[in-house]
């Protein structure tokens, strides 16, 4: 179990975005059908332009899950006054399926990291009842913890994050 949350703690996802939790559901995010998201790895902005395929585990199809994608480093990691920026919310995802079976409450926004290297975090919550999740007022200044409290979602059941920076930014020389 600690093998899964250790990179989240090191990358400060646990701490800045969510609280310490025990991952209990498998979460698999894949962009472009071959780029899988792994904790802390970097993806190109061209790859993450379209919405990914999110497969989740869980025991059965009666359980409903909510997926939230945020950027805790908006607009810049050194000065994140718009923390966090919301990119995507999908609710009522039946267990053991993928996100296309859910209801997209907040539509997918292409990440545009302008300054610095941003983390993009996918968090999976288990819903207590269907149709219980309401969209927030705005995408900026989003707080995952308060969103979970308002909608009765409790602690997350899975999380994964990746890094991305601007396409033309100075990289491997």
């Amino acid at each position: 179990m600690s093998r899964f949350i250790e990179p989240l703690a090191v990358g400060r996802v646990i701490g800045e975005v969510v609280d310490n939790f025990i991952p209990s559901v498998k979460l698999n995010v894949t962009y472009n059908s071959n780029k899988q998201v792994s904790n802390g790895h970097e993806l190109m902005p061209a790859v993450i332009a379209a919405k990914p395929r999110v497969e989740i585990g869980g025991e059965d199809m009666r359980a409903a899950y909510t997926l939230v994608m945020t950027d805790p480093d908006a607009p810049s990691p050194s000065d994140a006054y718009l923390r966090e920026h919301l990119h995507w919310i999908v609710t009522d995802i039946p267990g053991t399926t993928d996100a296309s079976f859910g209801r997209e409450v907040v539509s997918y926004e292409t990440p545009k990291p302008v300054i610095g290297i941003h983390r993009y975090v996918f968090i999976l919550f288990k819903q207590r009842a269907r149709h219980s999740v309401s969209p927030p007022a705005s995408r900026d200044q989003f707080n995952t913890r308060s969103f979970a409290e308002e909608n009765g979602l409790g602690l997350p059941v899975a999380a994964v994050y990746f890094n991305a920076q601007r396409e033309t930014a100075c990289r491997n020389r």
Partner: protein
Amino acid sequence: MACASTSASATWNMTPLRSALPSIHAPSSASSVHFSTGPSSSRLKLSRSKPSSKLLHSFVGLAPIHPLLSLASPDSTSFEHCFTVIDNGGRFFAMRHGRRVPKLNRPPDQRRALLRALTTQLLKHGRIKTTRSRASAMRKYVDKMVTLAKDGSLHKRRQALGFIYEKEIVHALFAEVEERYGDRNGGYTRIIRTLPRRGDNAPMAYIELV
């Protein structure tokens, strides 16, 4: 204190000269030569005792013969005796034992420029990706800049301006460090290791402000 011995012969009258200079009573005391070149390990300590009261022109250790005294003696007309010849730059040990400065494969001026540029970029962007050795070498300088900003006085601001390449970053740092790092004592950065670089398999790391 260089000890040398010379004969009282030759051109000048040595008595006023010798009274003005540090005394060179050779015979019964042990003479020791000290080179202390700072806290690093190149300490050279030679200690030997003069055997007899005979004044010798012979080997006087690595100390340069005091030029005024040597000019008086007849056979040392050149200046070779004034310069010690140690060809490894004063180092006493050939190995690197205990030296902790990361050299980053660069001469000292380039190394300083590289670290200045990296800390400037980190303070500007908040998170950068670089090689692991550079990231771990940077930590000291980033912490130093944040400490200067925490102090906040004009002198410290000017010291920071002399290190960081862009002055807007210095002013922004001095403005916001109070609320960001007011409670934190040290350790203002975090290093996360990541996949190696594709071109040369160099181990990479993200370094970010905490």
